[in-house]
Protein backbone atom coordinates (compact mmCIF):
# COMPACT_ATOMS: atom_id res chain seq x y z
CA UNK A 1 0.00 0.00 0.00
CA UNK A 2 1.29 3.47 -0.82
CA UNK A 3 2.01 5.99 1.89
CA UNK A 4 -1.09 7.95 0.91
CA UNK A 5 -3.17 4.78 0.92
CA UNK A 6 -1.94 3.95 4.42
CA UNK A 7 -2.75 7.41 5.67
CA UNK A 8 -6.21 7.33 4.15
CA UNK A 9 -6.78 3.90 5.67
CA UNK A 10 -5.77 5.04 9.16
CA UNK A 11 -7.95 8.09 8.66
CA UNK A 12 -11.02 5.91 8.10
CA UNK A 13 -10.18 3.55 10.98
CA UNK A 14 -9.61 6.41 13.43
CA UNK A 15 -12.83 8.17 12.51
CA UNK A 16 -14.85 4.97 12.76
CA UNK A 17 -13.37 4.50 16.25
CA UNK A 18 -14.27 8.07 17.22
CA UNK A 19 -17.82 7.62 15.97
CA UNK A 20 -18.10 4.41 17.97
CA UNK A 21 -16.82 6.18 21.11
CA UNK A 22 -19.58 8.74 20.65
CA UNK A 23 -22.13 5.96 20.22
CA UNK A 24 -20.93 4.41 23.51
CA UNK A 25 -21.29 7.74 25.32
CA UNK A 26 -24.79 8.35 23.96
CA UNK A 27 -25.91 4.81 24.75
CA UNK A 28 -24.67 5.21 28.34
CA UNK A 29 -27.05 8.15 28.73
CA UNK A 30 -29.93 6.25 27.18
CA UNK A 31 -29.21 3.12 29.22
CA UNK A 32 -29.54 5.20 32.38
CA UNK A 33 -32.66 7.02 31.21
CA UNK A 34 -34.30 3.82 29.99
CA UNK A 35 -33.66 1.91 33.23
CA UNK A 36 -34.86 4.92 35.24
CA UNK A 37 -37.98 5.29 33.15
CA UNK A 38 -38.96 1.61 33.16
CA UNK A 39 -38.39 1.23 36.92
CA UNK A 40 -39.56 4.67 37.97
CA UNK A 41 -42.82 4.84 36.01
CA UNK A 42 -43.92 1.41 37.23
CA UNK A 43 -46.56 1.85 39.93
CA UNK A 44 -46.20 5.65 39.83
CA UNK A 45 -49.32 7.31 41.20
CA UNK A 46 -50.41 10.43 43.03
CA UNK A 47 -49.85 8.49 46.22
CA UNK A 48 -46.11 9.01 45.73
CA UNK A 49 -46.63 12.76 46.04
CA UNK A 50 -49.32 12.75 48.74
CA UNK A 51 -48.28 10.10 51.27
CA UNK A 52 -45.27 9.98 53.54
CA UNK A 53 -42.53 7.34 53.53
CA UNK A 54 -43.91 4.01 54.74
CA UNK A 55 -42.71 1.41 57.22
CA UNK A 56 -41.53 -1.75 55.45
CA UNK A 57 -44.46 -3.75 54.11
CA UNK A 58 -47.05 -0.97 54.14
CA UNK A 59 -47.79 1.40 51.29
CA UNK A 60 -46.80 5.03 51.16
CA UNK A 61 -45.17 7.75 49.13
CA UNK A 62 -42.36 10.27 49.17
CA UNK A 63 -44.19 13.49 50.06
CA UNK A 64 -42.09 14.25 53.16
CA UNK A 65 -38.85 13.53 51.27
CA UNK A 66 -39.90 15.74 48.33
CA UNK A 67 -40.90 18.53 50.71
CA UNK A 68 -37.59 18.29 52.59
CA UNK A 69 -35.54 18.32 49.41
CA UNK A 70 -37.40 21.32 47.99
CA UNK A 71 -37.10 23.22 51.28
CA UNK A 72 -33.39 22.54 51.75
CA UNK A 73 -32.59 23.31 48.12
CA UNK A 74 -34.45 26.62 48.41
CA UNK A 75 -32.75 27.52 51.70
CA UNK A 76 -29.39 26.50 50.27
CA UNK A 77 -29.77 28.63 47.17
CA UNK A 78 -31.09 31.58 49.21
CA UNK A 79 -27.91 31.52 51.30
CA UNK A 80 -25.49 30.53 48.56
CA UNK A 81 -26.66 32.62 45.59
CA UNK A 82 -26.19 36.10 47.13
CA UNK A 83 -22.69 35.23 48.36
CA UNK A 84 -21.79 33.67 45.02
CA UNK A 85 -23.17 36.57 42.99
CA UNK A 86 -21.44 39.18 45.16
CA UNK A 87 -18.13 37.31 45.06
CA UNK A 88 -18.46 36.91 41.29
CA UNK A 89 -19.22 40.63 41.05
CA UNK A 90 -16.10 41.43 43.01
CA UNK A 91 -13.76 39.46 40.79
CA UNK A 92 -15.45 40.65 37.57
CA UNK A 93 -15.95 44.33 38.46
CA UNK A 94 -14.22 45.87 41.48
CA UNK A 95 -11.14 43.71 41.71
CA UNK A 96 -10.79 42.66 38.07
CA UNK A 97 -7.01 42.55 38.15
CA UNK A 98 -6.32 42.43 41.87
CA UNK A 99 -4.25 39.68 43.44
CA UNK A 100 -7.23 38.69 45.59
CA UNK A 101 -9.34 38.04 42.48
CA UNK A 102 -6.66 35.87 40.90
CA UNK A 103 -6.50 33.73 44.03
CA UNK A 104 -10.29 33.61 44.45
CA UNK A 105 -10.76 32.65 40.79
CA UNK A 106 -8.30 29.77 41.18
CA UNK A 107 -9.55 28.50 44.54
CA UNK A 108 -13.13 28.75 43.28
CA UNK A 109 -12.30 26.54 40.30
CA UNK A 110 -10.74 24.02 42.67
CA UNK A 111 -13.83 24.09 44.92
CA UNK A 112 -15.99 23.56 41.84
CA UNK A 113 -14.57 20.07 41.38
CA UNK A 114 -13.79 19.28 45.01
CA UNK A 115 -15.52 16.19 46.46
CA UNK A 116 -18.83 17.20 48.04
CA UNK A 117 -18.39 14.65 50.83
CA UNK A 118 -15.68 16.93 52.30
CA UNK A 119 -18.17 19.81 52.47
CA UNK A 120 -20.42 17.42 54.40
CA UNK A 121 -17.65 16.64 56.89
CA UNK A 122 -16.89 20.36 57.22
CA UNK A 123 -20.49 21.30 58.06
CA UNK A 124 -20.76 18.26 60.34
CA UNK A 125 -17.81 19.49 62.41
CA UNK A 126 -18.79 23.15 62.32
CA UNK A 127 -22.56 22.89 62.86
CA UNK A 128 -23.81 19.41 63.75
CA UNK A 129 -21.20 18.71 66.44
CA UNK A 130 -21.70 22.14 68.04
CA UNK A 131 -25.50 22.06 67.98
CA UNK A 132 -25.49 18.46 69.08
CA UNK A 133 -27.85 17.00 66.49
CA UNK A 134 -28.53 16.78 62.76
CA UNK A 135 -30.77 19.45 61.25
CA UNK A 136 -32.24 20.66 57.96
CA UNK A 137 -30.44 23.98 58.50
CA UNK A 138 -27.07 22.22 58.55
CA UNK A 139 -28.06 20.49 55.30
CA UNK A 140 -29.04 23.80 53.73
CA UNK A 141 -25.67 25.30 54.75
CA UNK A 142 -23.84 22.39 53.13
CA UNK A 143 -25.87 22.82 49.93
CA UNK A 144 -25.24 26.58 50.01
CA UNK A 145 -21.48 26.00 50.18
CA UNK A 146 -21.71 23.70 47.18
CA UNK A 147 -23.74 26.24 45.20
CA UNK A 148 -21.34 29.15 45.84
CA UNK A 149 -18.56 28.11 43.40
CA UNK A 150 -21.15 27.48 40.65
CA UNK A 151 -22.64 30.95 41.16
CA UNK A 152 -19.22 32.66 41.31
CA UNK A 153 -18.11 31.04 38.06
CA UNK A 154 -21.27 31.79 36.05
CA UNK A 155 -21.62 35.31 37.46
CA UNK A 156 -18.07 36.21 36.48
CA UNK A 157 -18.45 34.69 33.02
CA UNK A 158 -21.73 36.48 32.39
CA UNK A 159 -20.55 39.87 33.67
CA UNK A 160 -17.47 39.57 31.45
CA UNK A 161 -19.79 39.30 28.44
CA UNK A 162 -21.24 42.74 29.15
CA UNK A 163 -19.36 45.30 27.03
CA UNK A 164 -17.22 47.77 29.01
CA UNK A 165 -18.52 50.73 27.00
CA UNK A 166 -21.92 50.72 28.73
CA UNK A 167 -20.14 50.80 32.09
CA UNK A 168 -18.20 53.84 30.94
CA UNK A 169 -21.43 55.43 29.75
CA UNK A 170 -23.00 54.97 33.15
CA UNK A 171 -19.93 56.25 34.97
CA UNK A 172 -19.85 59.32 32.72
CA UNK A 173 -23.34 60.20 33.95
CA UNK A 174 -21.94 60.29 37.46
CA UNK A 175 -23.19 56.91 38.70
CA UNK A 176 -21.32 55.12 41.44
CA UNK A 177 -20.04 51.65 40.50
CA UNK A 178 -22.79 49.97 42.58
CA UNK A 179 -25.43 51.93 40.65
CA UNK A 180 -23.81 50.97 37.33
CA UNK A 181 -23.58 47.32 38.37
CA UNK A 182 -27.10 47.01 39.74
CA UNK A 183 -28.95 49.12 37.17
CA UNK A 184 -26.89 48.54 34.01
CA UNK A 185 -24.63 45.48 34.23
CA UNK A 186 -26.91 43.03 36.07
CA UNK A 187 -29.91 43.68 33.77
CA UNK A 188 -27.66 43.24 30.72
CA UNK A 189 -26.43 39.90 32.07
CA UNK A 190 -29.82 38.85 33.42
CA UNK A 191 -30.47 35.79 31.26
CA UNK A 192 -27.00 34.43 31.85
CA UNK A 193 -27.28 34.91 35.60
CA UNK A 194 -30.66 33.18 35.69
CA UNK A 195 -29.05 30.31 33.78
CA UNK A 196 -26.34 30.13 36.44
CA UNK A 197 -28.95 30.12 39.18
CA UNK A 198 -30.81 27.25 37.51
CA UNK A 199 -27.61 25.26 37.06
CA UNK A 200 -26.76 25.80 40.74
CA UNK A 201 -30.22 24.57 41.77
CA UNK A 202 -29.82 21.54 39.48
CA UNK A 203 -26.43 20.86 41.02
CA UNK A 204 -27.48 20.96 44.67
CA UNK A 205 -30.90 19.31 44.43
CA UNK A 206 -29.31 15.96 43.60
CA UNK A 207 -26.46 16.11 46.12
CA UNK A 208 -26.53 13.27 48.61
CA UNK A 209 -23.09 12.84 50.19
CA UNK A 210 -23.17 16.16 52.11
CA UNK A 211 -26.71 15.52 53.40
CA UNK A 212 -25.59 12.26 54.95
CA UNK A 213 -23.50 14.13 57.56
CA UNK A 214 -25.81 17.07 58.09
CA UNK A 215 -29.57 16.32 57.93
CA UNK A 216 -29.52 12.55 57.93
CA UNK A 217 -33.13 11.51 57.24
CA UNK A 218 -36.54 11.37 58.83
CA UNK A 219 -39.20 8.78 58.28
CA UNK A 220 -42.00 11.14 59.21
CA UNK A 221 -43.44 14.41 57.98
CA UNK A 222 -41.47 17.22 59.56
CA UNK A 223 -41.34 20.96 58.95
CA UNK A 224 -38.95 21.74 61.81
CA UNK A 225 -35.78 22.97 60.14
CA UNK A 226 -33.77 22.60 63.34
CA UNK A 227 -34.30 18.82 63.32
CA UNK A 228 -33.44 15.97 60.94
CA UNK A 229 -35.68 16.12 57.89
CA UNK A 230 -36.63 13.64 55.19
CA UNK A 231 -35.05 14.26 51.79
CA UNK A 232 -35.05 12.50 48.45
CA UNK A 233 -31.34 11.58 48.05
CA UNK A 234 -31.02 9.98 51.49
CA UNK A 235 -34.38 8.22 51.11
CA UNK A 236 -33.26 6.83 47.74
CA UNK A 237 -30.01 5.64 49.33
CA UNK A 238 -31.66 3.93 52.30
CA UNK A 239 -34.51 2.40 50.33
CA UNK A 240 -32.37 1.16 47.43
CA UNK A 241 -30.02 -0.60 49.86
CA UNK A 242 -32.96 -2.18 51.74
CA UNK A 243 -34.18 -5.72 51.05
CA UNK A 244 -37.86 -4.67 50.76
CA UNK A 245 -39.42 -4.58 47.27
CA UNK A 246 -41.78 -1.72 48.22
CA UNK A 247 -38.90 0.42 49.40
CA UNK A 248 -36.81 -0.35 46.34
CA UNK A 249 -39.72 0.65 44.09
CA UNK A 250 -40.01 3.97 45.97
CA UNK A 251 -36.25 4.45 45.58
CA UNK A 252 -36.61 4.13 41.80
CA UNK A 253 -39.56 6.51 41.76
CA UNK A 254 -37.56 9.01 43.80
CA UNK A 255 -34.57 8.65 41.47
CA UNK A 256 -36.88 9.19 38.49
CA UNK A 257 -38.46 12.32 39.98
CA UNK A 258 -35.12 13.87 40.90
CA UNK A 259 -33.50 13.09 37.53
CA UNK A 260 -36.51 14.34 35.55
CA UNK A 261 -36.44 17.59 37.54
CA UNK A 262 -32.69 18.11 37.10
CA UNK A 263 -32.62 17.24 33.39
CA UNK A 264 -35.58 19.52 32.64
CA UNK A 265 -33.94 22.35 34.57
CA UNK A 266 -30.62 21.79 32.76
CA UNK A 267 -32.27 21.77 29.33
CA UNK A 268 -34.24 24.91 30.20
CA UNK A 269 -31.06 26.63 31.43
CA UNK A 270 -29.27 25.59 28.27
CA UNK A 271 -31.90 27.00 25.91
CA UNK A 272 -31.99 30.21 27.92
CA UNK A 273 -28.21 30.61 27.70
CA UNK A 274 -28.17 29.97 23.95
CA UNK A 275 -30.80 32.68 23.61
CA UNK A 276 -28.50 34.96 25.59
CA UNK A 277 -25.56 34.01 23.38
CA UNK A 278 -27.53 34.99 20.26
CA UNK A 279 -28.39 38.36 21.73
CA UNK A 280 -24.73 38.95 22.48
CA UNK A 281 -23.48 38.08 19.02
CA UNK A 282 -26.13 40.16 17.29
CA UNK A 283 -24.83 43.11 19.27
CA UNK A 284 -27.90 43.69 21.40
Amino acid at each position, binding site marked *: MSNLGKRQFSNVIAFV*ACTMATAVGISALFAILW*VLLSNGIAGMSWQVFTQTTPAPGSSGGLSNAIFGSVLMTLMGILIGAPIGILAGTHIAEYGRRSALSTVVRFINDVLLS*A*PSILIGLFVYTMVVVRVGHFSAIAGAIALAIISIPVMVRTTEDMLNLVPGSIRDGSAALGAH*PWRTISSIVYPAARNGMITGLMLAIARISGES*APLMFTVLNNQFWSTDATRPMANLPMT*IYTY*AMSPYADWQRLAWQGAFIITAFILLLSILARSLSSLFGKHQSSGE
Partner: protein
Amino acid sequence: MAATPLYLSTLRREARIEGIFKAATYISAWTVLLLLAGVIITLIVGSWLTITKFGLGFLTHSKWNPVEDNYGALAPLYGTVITSVIAMIIAVPLSFGIAVFLTEICPRWLRRPISTAIELLAAIPSIVFGIWGLFFMAPVMQRSVQPWLIAHVGSIPGVGNLFQGPPYGIGVLTAGVVLAIMVLPFITAVFREVFTMTPKSLKEAAYGMGATQWNVVWDVVVPWSRTGIIGGIMLGLGRALGETMAVTFVIGNANRISSSILAPGTSIAAKIASEFAEAESAAHTSALIELGLLLFVLTFIIIASARLMLLRMDRGKAQRA
Protein backbone atom coordinates in the same frame (compact mmCIF):
# COMPACT_ATOMS: atom_id res chain seq x y z
CA MET B 1 -27.39 76.33 57.99
CA ALA B 2 -30.15 76.00 55.44
CA ALA B 3 -31.80 72.67 54.74
CA THR B 4 -29.58 70.37 52.69
CA PRO B 5 -30.58 70.45 49.02
CA LEU B 6 -32.31 67.29 47.86
CA TYR B 7 -29.63 66.29 45.37
CA LEU B 8 -26.96 66.42 48.08
CA SER B 9 -28.79 63.96 50.29
CA THR B 10 -29.27 61.70 47.24
CA LEU B 11 -25.56 61.92 46.49
CA ARG B 12 -24.68 61.06 50.08
CA ARG B 13 -27.05 58.12 50.05
CA GLU B 14 -25.58 56.83 46.79
CA ALA B 15 -22.08 57.12 48.24
CA ARG B 16 -23.12 55.31 51.40
CA ILE B 17 -24.67 52.42 49.49
CA GLU B 18 -21.54 52.29 47.34
CA GLY B 19 -19.46 51.68 50.46
CA ILE B 20 -21.79 48.96 51.73
CA PHE B 21 -22.10 47.21 48.35
CA LYS B 22 -18.37 47.25 47.70
CA ALA B 23 -17.66 45.86 51.16
CA ALA B 24 -20.26 43.13 50.63
CA THR B 25 -18.65 41.97 47.38
CA TYR B 26 -15.24 42.09 49.04
CA ILE B 27 -16.37 40.00 52.01
CA SER B 28 -18.08 37.51 49.71
CA ALA B 29 -14.90 37.07 47.68
CA TRP B 30 -13.01 36.39 50.90
CA THR B 31 -15.72 33.90 51.93
CA VAL B 32 -14.65 31.64 49.06
CA LEU B 33 -11.11 31.56 50.43
CA LEU B 34 -12.28 31.16 54.02
CA LEU B 35 -14.40 28.17 53.01
CA LEU B 36 -11.36 26.34 51.69
CA ALA B 37 -9.33 27.29 54.76
CA GLY B 38 -12.24 26.19 56.96
CA VAL B 39 -12.39 22.78 55.29
CA ILE B 40 -8.65 22.23 55.79
CA ILE B 41 -8.68 23.35 59.41
CA THR B 42 -11.73 21.35 60.47
CA LEU B 43 -10.38 18.21 58.80
CA ILE B 44 -7.06 18.55 60.64
CA VAL B 45 -8.70 19.39 63.97
CA GLY B 46 -11.28 16.62 63.58
CA SER B 47 -8.65 13.97 62.94
CA TRP B 48 -6.00 15.25 65.38
CA LEU B 49 -6.64 12.30 67.72
CA THR B 50 -5.63 9.67 65.18
CA ILE B 51 -2.97 11.85 63.50
CA THR B 52 -1.08 12.04 66.79
CA LYS B 53 -1.86 8.45 67.77
CA PHE B 54 -0.85 6.65 64.60
CA GLY B 55 1.32 9.19 62.77
CA LEU B 56 2.49 7.98 59.38
CA GLY B 57 1.63 4.42 60.42
CA PHE B 58 -1.95 5.28 59.41
CA LEU B 59 -0.88 5.10 55.78
CA THR B 60 1.09 1.88 55.87
CA HIS B 61 -1.27 -0.91 56.90
CA SER B 62 -4.74 -2.09 56.00
CA LYS B 63 -6.15 -3.20 59.36
CA TRP B 64 -9.40 -1.45 60.22
CA ASN B 65 -10.58 -2.57 63.59
CA PRO B 66 -13.09 -0.41 65.49
CA VAL B 67 -13.13 -2.87 68.41
CA GLU B 68 -9.42 -2.49 69.13
CA ASP B 69 -9.38 1.09 67.83
CA ASN B 70 -6.62 0.27 65.36
CA TYR B 71 -6.92 1.94 61.98
CA GLY B 72 -4.92 1.90 58.75
CA ALA B 73 -5.86 3.65 55.53
CA LEU B 74 -4.14 1.42 53.01
CA ALA B 75 -7.20 -0.54 51.81
CA PRO B 76 -9.47 2.46 51.08
CA LEU B 77 -6.51 4.38 49.66
CA TYR B 78 -5.74 1.49 47.31
CA GLY B 79 -9.41 1.17 46.34
CA THR B 80 -9.68 4.90 45.61
CA VAL B 81 -6.62 4.90 43.37
CA ILE B 82 -7.39 1.65 41.54
CA THR B 83 -11.05 2.53 40.79
CA SER B 84 -9.99 5.94 39.52
CA VAL B 85 -7.25 4.45 37.35
CA ILE B 86 -9.75 1.98 35.83
CA ALA B 87 -12.16 4.88 35.24
CA MET B 88 -9.42 6.86 33.48
CA ILE B 89 -8.36 3.91 31.30
CA ILE B 90 -11.95 3.65 30.04
CA ALA B 91 -13.01 7.30 30.03
CA VAL B 92 -9.97 9.02 28.49
CA PRO B 93 -10.00 7.19 25.10
CA LEU B 94 -13.80 7.49 24.94
CA SER B 95 -13.69 11.21 25.74
CA PHE B 96 -10.94 11.72 23.19
CA GLY B 97 -13.02 9.93 20.54
CA ILE B 98 -16.14 11.93 21.37
CA ALA B 99 -14.23 15.22 21.36
CA VAL B 100 -12.67 14.43 17.96
CA PHE B 101 -16.05 13.34 16.64
CA LEU B 102 -17.71 16.55 17.80
CA THR B 103 -14.99 18.91 16.60
CA GLU B 104 -13.98 17.22 13.32
CA ILE B 105 -16.42 14.65 12.00
CA CYS B 106 -19.90 15.52 13.16
CA PRO B 107 -22.20 17.27 10.69
CA ARG B 108 -23.14 20.69 12.00
CA TRP B 109 -26.84 19.93 12.55
CA LEU B 110 -26.01 16.88 14.67
CA ARG B 111 -23.41 18.64 16.81
CA ARG B 112 -25.79 20.32 19.22
CA PRO B 113 -28.00 17.31 20.04
CA ILE B 114 -25.00 15.03 20.57
CA SER B 115 -23.02 17.47 22.70
CA THR B 116 -26.16 18.18 24.74
CA ALA B 117 -26.66 14.45 25.35
CA ILE B 118 -23.06 14.05 26.55
CA GLU B 119 -23.29 17.14 28.77
CA LEU B 120 -26.57 15.97 30.30
CA LEU B 121 -24.69 12.94 31.55
CA ALA B 122 -22.87 15.35 33.87
CA ALA B 123 -26.15 16.62 35.32
CA ILE B 124 -27.38 13.21 36.50
CA PRO B 125 -26.89 12.99 40.26
CA SER B 126 -24.38 10.62 41.79
CA ILE B 127 -27.07 8.76 43.70
CA VAL B 128 -28.86 7.91 40.44
CA PHE B 129 -25.63 6.49 39.00
CA GLY B 130 -25.43 4.48 42.21
CA ILE B 131 -28.87 2.90 42.03
CA TRP B 132 -28.42 2.31 38.28
CA GLY B 133 -25.02 0.74 38.88
CA LEU B 134 -26.34 -1.55 41.61
CA PHE B 135 -29.50 -2.79 39.87
CA PHE B 136 -28.53 -2.62 36.19
CA MET B 137 -24.75 -2.48 35.72
CA ALA B 138 -23.75 -4.96 38.43
CA PRO B 139 -26.02 -7.77 37.10
CA VAL B 140 -24.77 -7.13 33.56
CA MET B 141 -21.18 -7.32 34.81
CA GLN B 142 -21.93 -10.49 36.78
CA ARG B 143 -23.74 -12.30 33.98
CA SER B 144 -21.75 -11.38 30.90
CA VAL B 145 -18.69 -9.17 31.30
CA GLN B 146 -16.98 -10.78 34.29
CA PRO B 147 -17.43 -14.46 33.27
CA TRP B 148 -15.97 -13.56 29.87
CA LEU B 149 -13.02 -11.78 31.49
CA ILE B 150 -12.38 -14.71 33.86
CA ALA B 151 -12.50 -17.23 31.01
CA HIS B 152 -10.47 -15.33 28.45
CA VAL B 153 -8.16 -12.92 30.28
CA GLY B 154 -7.92 -14.65 33.67
CA SER B 155 -5.56 -17.34 32.38
CA ILE B 156 -3.06 -15.01 30.69
CA PRO B 157 0.09 -14.91 32.81
CA GLY B 158 0.82 -11.49 34.26
CA VAL B 159 -2.44 -9.63 33.79
CA GLY B 160 -4.50 -12.77 34.56
CA ASN B 161 -4.30 -12.19 38.32
CA LEU B 162 -6.42 -9.08 37.91
CA PHE B 163 -9.34 -11.07 36.54
CA GLN B 164 -9.65 -14.08 38.81
CA GLY B 165 -12.16 -15.26 41.39
CA PRO B 166 -15.93 -15.48 41.27
CA PRO B 167 -17.98 -12.86 39.35
CA TYR B 168 -19.52 -10.90 42.23
CA GLY B 169 -21.07 -8.26 40.00
CA ILE B 170 -20.34 -5.49 42.47
CA GLY B 171 -16.68 -4.72 43.11
CA VAL B 172 -13.70 -2.62 42.10
CA LEU B 173 -14.11 -3.07 38.34
CA THR B 174 -17.83 -2.21 38.36
CA ALA B 175 -17.09 0.90 40.44
CA GLY B 176 -14.43 1.87 37.88
CA VAL B 177 -16.87 1.44 34.98
CA VAL B 178 -19.58 3.54 36.66
CA LEU B 179 -16.98 6.21 37.53
CA ALA B 180 -15.82 6.22 33.90
CA ILE B 181 -19.33 7.12 32.70
CA MET B 182 -19.58 9.82 35.38
CA VAL B 183 -16.31 11.61 34.55
CA LEU B 184 -16.63 11.19 30.78
CA PRO B 185 -18.62 14.40 30.17
CA PHE B 186 -16.15 16.49 32.19
CA ILE B 187 -13.09 15.22 30.32
CA THR B 188 -14.90 15.51 26.97
CA ALA B 189 -15.81 19.14 27.68
CA VAL B 190 -12.17 20.09 28.39
CA PHE B 191 -10.86 18.16 25.36
CA ARG B 192 -13.37 19.85 23.06
CA GLU B 193 -12.50 23.25 24.38
CA VAL B 194 -8.74 22.84 23.94
CA PHE B 195 -9.13 21.20 20.51
CA THR B 196 -11.07 24.18 19.19
CA MET B 197 -8.33 26.52 20.44
CA THR B 198 -5.89 25.15 17.85
CA PRO B 199 -5.06 28.01 15.46
CA LYS B 200 -6.80 27.55 12.10
CA SER B 201 -3.65 28.56 10.23
CA LEU B 202 -1.71 25.59 11.68
CA LYS B 203 -4.40 23.15 10.60
CA GLU B 204 -4.74 24.71 7.17
CA ALA B 205 -0.98 24.56 6.67
CA ALA B 206 -1.09 20.83 7.41
CA TYR B 207 -3.99 20.28 5.02
CA GLY B 208 -2.03 22.23 2.42
CA MET B 209 0.79 19.69 2.77
CA GLY B 210 -1.67 16.91 1.91
CA ALA B 211 -2.40 15.71 5.45
CA THR B 212 -5.57 13.69 6.03
CA GLN B 213 -8.05 14.89 8.64
CA TRP B 214 -6.74 12.30 11.11
CA ASN B 215 -3.13 13.40 10.43
CA VAL B 216 -4.18 16.92 11.35
CA VAL B 217 -5.87 15.74 14.55
CA TRP B 218 -3.02 13.50 15.66
CA ASP B 219 0.00 15.53 14.48
CA VAL B 220 -1.24 19.11 14.82
CA VAL B 221 -4.22 19.40 17.19
CA VAL B 222 -3.03 16.87 19.81
CA PRO B 223 0.54 18.18 20.18
CA TRP B 224 -0.74 21.76 20.28
CA SER B 225 -3.28 21.01 23.01
CA ARG B 226 -1.07 18.63 25.01
CA THR B 227 -1.12 20.69 28.21
CA GLY B 228 -4.89 21.04 28.04
CA ILE B 229 -5.32 17.31 27.42
CA ILE B 230 -3.30 16.46 30.51
CA GLY B 231 -5.23 19.10 32.45
CA GLY B 232 -8.54 17.55 31.37
CA ILE B 233 -7.41 14.06 32.33
CA MET B 234 -6.32 15.26 35.77
CA LEU B 235 -9.57 17.13 36.27
CA GLY B 236 -11.46 13.92 35.55
CA LEU B 237 -9.14 12.03 37.89
CA GLY B 238 -9.79 14.54 40.66
CA ARG B 239 -13.53 14.00 40.25
CA ALA B 240 -13.22 10.22 40.16
CA LEU B 241 -11.13 10.13 43.36
CA GLY B 242 -13.75 11.94 45.44
CA GLU B 243 -16.93 10.46 43.98
CA THR B 244 -18.97 9.09 46.87
CA MET B 245 -22.51 7.79 46.50
CA ALA B 246 -22.21 5.92 43.22
CA VAL B 247 -19.09 4.13 44.44
CA THR B 248 -20.68 3.31 47.80
CA PHE B 249 -23.47 1.49 45.97
CA VAL B 250 -21.32 -0.71 43.74
CA ILE B 251 -17.88 -1.24 45.28
CA GLY B 252 -18.99 -3.83 47.87
CA ASN B 253 -17.58 -2.04 50.94
CA ALA B 254 -15.04 -4.70 51.93
CA ASN B 255 -11.96 -3.42 53.74
CA ARG B 256 -9.38 -5.44 51.87
CA ILE B 257 -6.85 -5.28 49.10
CA SER B 258 -7.39 -8.03 46.52
CA SER B 259 -5.17 -8.83 43.58
CA SER B 260 -8.30 -9.29 41.47
CA ILE B 261 -10.22 -6.21 40.33
CA LEU B 262 -13.39 -8.31 40.21
CA ALA B 263 -13.37 -8.57 44.01
CA PRO B 264 -15.23 -6.19 46.34
CA GLY B 265 -13.15 -3.43 47.90
CA THR B 266 -13.68 0.01 49.34
CA SER B 267 -12.68 3.59 48.62
CA ILE B 268 -12.00 6.51 50.96
CA ALA B 269 -15.28 8.26 50.17
CA ALA B 270 -17.32 5.04 50.27
CA LYS B 271 -15.80 4.09 53.61
CA ILE B 272 -16.60 7.44 55.20
CA ALA B 273 -20.15 7.35 53.80
CA SER B 274 -20.92 3.83 54.93
CA GLU B 275 -19.34 3.96 58.41
CA PHE B 276 -19.68 7.51 59.63
CA ALA B 277 -23.17 7.17 61.09
CA GLU B 278 -22.20 4.01 62.98
CA ALA B 279 -18.87 5.22 64.36
CA GLU B 280 -19.10 4.99 68.14
CA SER B 281 -15.65 5.64 69.54
CA ALA B 282 -13.98 9.02 69.15
CA ALA B 283 -11.01 7.32 67.49
CA HIS B 284 -13.26 5.74 64.85
CA THR B 285 -14.78 9.12 63.90
CA SER B 286 -11.33 10.68 63.97
CA ALA B 287 -9.93 7.95 61.71
CA LEU B 288 -12.76 8.51 59.22
CA ILE B 289 -12.14 12.26 59.23
CA GLU B 290 -8.43 11.58 58.70
CA LEU B 291 -9.46 9.58 55.63
CA GLY B 292 -11.32 12.71 54.53
CA LEU B 293 -8.15 14.76 55.07
CA LEU B 294 -6.23 12.27 52.95
CA LEU B 295 -8.84 12.56 50.20
CA PHE B 296 -8.67 16.34 50.42
CA VAL B 297 -4.88 16.42 50.01
CA LEU B 298 -5.03 13.96 47.11
CA THR B 299 -7.80 15.73 45.19
CA PHE B 300 -6.51 19.22 45.97
CA ILE B 301 -3.07 18.50 44.52
CA ILE B 302 -4.54 16.91 41.40
CA ILE B 303 -7.30 19.44 40.75
CA ALA B 304 -5.01 22.39 41.48
CA SER B 305 -2.36 21.16 39.03
CA ALA B 306 -5.07 20.46 36.45
CA ARG B 307 -6.37 24.02 36.81
CA LEU B 308 -2.85 25.45 36.56
CA MET B 309 -2.27 23.54 33.33
CA LEU B 310 -5.58 24.72 31.84
CA LEU B 311 -4.76 28.27 32.90
CA ARG B 312 -1.39 28.07 31.15
CA MET B 313 -3.21 26.79 28.07
CA ASP B 314 -5.53 29.82 28.17
CA ARG B 315 -2.66 32.20 28.54
CA GLY B 316 -0.79 30.59 25.65
CA LYS B 317 -3.86 31.08 23.50
CA ALA B 318 -4.15 34.71 24.52
CA GLN B 319 -0.55 35.39 23.48
CA ARG B 320 -1.00 33.83 20.08
CA ALA B 321 -4.30 35.48 19.33
